[in-house]
């Protein structure tokens, strides 16, 4: 019994640590909203590469620093398309409501057991009436109870500034020059914990920085397993029969 307690304590501790980080991130994330009004915006270009030098998509880079104000955003959506979460990684500020539109013909049962938000959207199609509010920073891992391969990551952060890398592993920030703390998170991170990537000094001229992960990153794929004969037959029947 005490083992479980110890574990939950550990989790709680980590949570708090994470939350602190996220808190900072959140704060920093808000700053870009303010800073342009204050000073001229510099361009910060960051690129994330893995160990082999390949560009890493879907990495969340968050910046915290003085002068960055957090901003709230409107509802964001994480859709299910073709039995996959699209985008697989979504970064939102704490307090954002997220819609989960089901664009598939089949129903999905979206769930998450993550401590940041535990919720279920049972077997629905279309868009649920209410979006889900994520009011705690942290990582929410989403899955579909019916389709085991569907995995989505919702990164809720307090950081004022954050962005998700594109296919080339790039993000672009417009922010006032200054010193900022950089945070990096990717689904391949060990223990799914964000990394602090140190200070960045952005000059007026901007900064172009490349970040390297110490590990190999495989592309995020949500692919169903190869169909068994039964499965194949099912698929064929499905295609043929009018729906």
């Amino acid at each position: 019994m005490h083992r479980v307690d110890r574990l939950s304590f550990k989790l709680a501790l980590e949570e708090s640590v994470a939350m602190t980080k996220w808190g900072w991130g959140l704060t920093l994330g808000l700053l870009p909203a303010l800073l342009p009004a204050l000073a001229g915006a510099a361009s910060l270009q960051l690129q994330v590469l893995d160990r082999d030098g390949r560009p890493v998509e879907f990495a969340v880079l968050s910046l915290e620093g003085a002068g960055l104000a957090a901003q709230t955003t409107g509802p964001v959506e994480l859709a299910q398309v073709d039995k996959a979460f699209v985008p697989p990684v979504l970064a939102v500020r704490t307090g954002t409501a997220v819609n989960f539109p089901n664009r598939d013909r089949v129903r999905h049962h979206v769930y998450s057991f993550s401590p940041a938000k535990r919720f279920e959207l049972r077997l629905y199609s279309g868009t649920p009436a209410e979006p889900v509010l994520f009011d705690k920073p942290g990582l929410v891992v989403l899955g579909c109870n019916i389709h085991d391969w569907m995995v989505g990551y919702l990164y809720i952060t307090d950081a004022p500034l954050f962005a998700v890398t594109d296919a080339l592993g790039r993000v672009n920030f417009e922010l006032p020059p200054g010193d900022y703390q950089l945070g990096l998170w990717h689904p391949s991170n060990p223990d799914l914990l964000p990394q602090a990537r140190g200070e960045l000094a952005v000059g007026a001229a901007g900064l172009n920085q490349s970040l390297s992960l110490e590990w190999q990153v495989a592309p995020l794929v949500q692919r169903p397993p190869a169909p068994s004969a039964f499965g194949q037959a099912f698929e064929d029947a499905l295609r043929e029969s009018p729906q």
Partner: protein
Amino acid sequence: MPCVNRLNSFQARLVLALVLLLAAVMASVYLFARLAVGEAVREQTAQRLEVGEKVLQRLLEVRRQQLSDAVSVLAADFGFKEAVASGDAPTLRSALLNHAARIRADEALLLDLNGRLIASSLAGEQRKPGFDALALQAVSSGGPLLVPVRGQLHLLVDSPVRAPVPVARVVMGFALDRPVIEELRSLTGLELTLAAHSPEAVLAYSSSLTPSPLELAALLRDSRAGVPHDQRLNGELYLSRAIPLGDLARGRVEAFLHGSLQQAMEGFVGLDRDLFSVTLVALLASLLLALALARAISRPLSELTRVAERIGQGDYAEPIAIAGRDEFGRLARVFGQMQEAIAERERQLAHNALHDAVSGLANRSLALERIGSALQAGRPVGLVALALKNYRQLLDSLSDATAEQLLPALRLRLEAVLGLGDSAARLADDEFLLLLDGRDAEASVALVDRIQQLLGKPLWLGEQALSLDIALGVAAAPSDGDEPELLLRRVDIALQDALQSPERLQVYQQGRDSDYRRQIDLIRALRHAPQQGGLLLHFQPKLDLRLDRVRQAEALLRWQHPLYGMVSPGEFIPLAERTGSIGLLTAWVIEEGCRQLGEWNANGLHLQLSLNVSADDLLQVELVERVAGLIRQHRIEPAQLVFEITESAVMQDQARALAVLDGLRGLGIGLSVDDFGTGYSSLAQLKRMPVQELKIDQSFVRELDARSEDAVIVRSTIEMSHSLGLKVVAEGVEQAGALALLRQWGCDCVQGYFISRPLPAEALVAWLGEREAQEV
């Protein structure tokens, strides 16, 4: 089988060899078959074990897969995921228990991603330390993980709990107990033992057999993976194969498959039995066969041995009782031929032994046999010995071709005179013997006359008529002897006598045999008589009528035979003359005479000695030399010697005889004609002979009477001699009257028993001394 009683060594060897050979063959066949079967069974079992291993691996794999799938399904259960996400310990435990129960797992564990235990279905005291380590292994290994739990092996299967990413691992354990083992057993027919053991202890095991702790320990200790080895379990023999299933922290987990060798062998028990019984039957059959074969070989051999023995003993008559076309039959036939050949040769030899080759008549041996058998049977048999005196001359006179016909013709003639039961034999080239069966002496003689007549007729050979000079000797059995040899000798003596006689016929007379024998003895002894010292000289004094004194003596040879005593000269002299010993005798006489004269001379007695000389002596030219030498040697005067010779002695070789006489006369020796008036008296010859004296034979003197014819002869002889200038000596004076007459008629000298018989030397000297004394 009679042969078994007389088990000879060859038979025994043959039987033994055959039986041993077959026994060896069968034994090795049986052995090899057994070995092969044993090998095959082992091989088979080993293969089954190999297959069994594959089956076991597959079985475990399938089981694991099944269980894994089941656990995966369980792990995917939303409710379970929720429970796991809740982190609530009791909830987790009950969830584990529930889910474990769903798939009948014996235990369920929830581990975090680092392998640390979060929750477990096992109660506190049941949880063993180190279980989490094992669970970690379950996480990391791919194959079925078997761990010993509560003395049993449990299969641990794990599955990640995805929510949706792996957040924990659920591990479920299933005891591998009897059902698994039974399933494997039913699939493969092999026994299974599962064991987890460390070097010190057996941590868990379960087995379809019930091995004793010792057996189990041996099994665990001795097995090598992949190498099947023999193991005794439950008291039965199994071939075991060890299959490693995994390693523990200290020790390992292994499965052992056992194939029963005994069971596998059972299938061959039938073969075994059959092979064994075949072996026995074959052995028995071979024994009988061998005995039969041995008998088949040794029976003919024994028979042949017997036959050979019989032949060795001279029985050629019995036929050989072996038929057949095989080698033995052939051998037997050859033996039979040999037997016949030997018999034939023996007959031939016997025939030859008993018959004369040339004429085909019986030979001496057969003749003796026949005589012998007649004697034994008590039958009288007459023996007629027949000699063909002119056989050689006849042969010489004939051509070769004609000569060959002589004997057959003779034989025919002989056989013509014989009757039934009689037989003829050939004893020598020119001598034959007729056996007249059933005739005694008289009957034989009567028949012999007729034989003589018949055989006397000329024998015609082609154009030639040959006259046969036949002499016959007759003897009869049993009157003339009771033994064949004796009879033959006696008839032969008769034949010898017949040959000498003009009648050419002689019947054996009693005593002739001993006469003959005596003769032969004497003849033999005569040859050595001079050396033996049996000879001596007796001296018969001669009275000189003119002087009325004795001044001469005639030396007469006497012979003392060791056996026969004194042998008269009348007997041995003719023998000596016949056998050529006369020369020896005369030589001795002359020498002894000279010696004696010399001795007498030395003693002052001067005599004249007359010696008889034979015809043979006169033919020796050396005689003169010899006599000369003796005269000198003994220092006698030649005139002291007078040699007396008969007229017939000169006849043989007149010229040479006269030459010798002349030679003797030349020496100064006197010569005298002995036995005048008998024999071949020839006055013409007398003239030629250089003699000084003439002796009138005693036959005229012995019964001299004034009126007899002898008187006329004597008287005229005296006158004639005187006229011829010869002195006259009269021998055989035995009466006074004769003496007076002779004195009257003017005979010079007389000799005879009336004066004195012949005396030995000492006696003569004594007699002379007495006479001189009387005269004076």
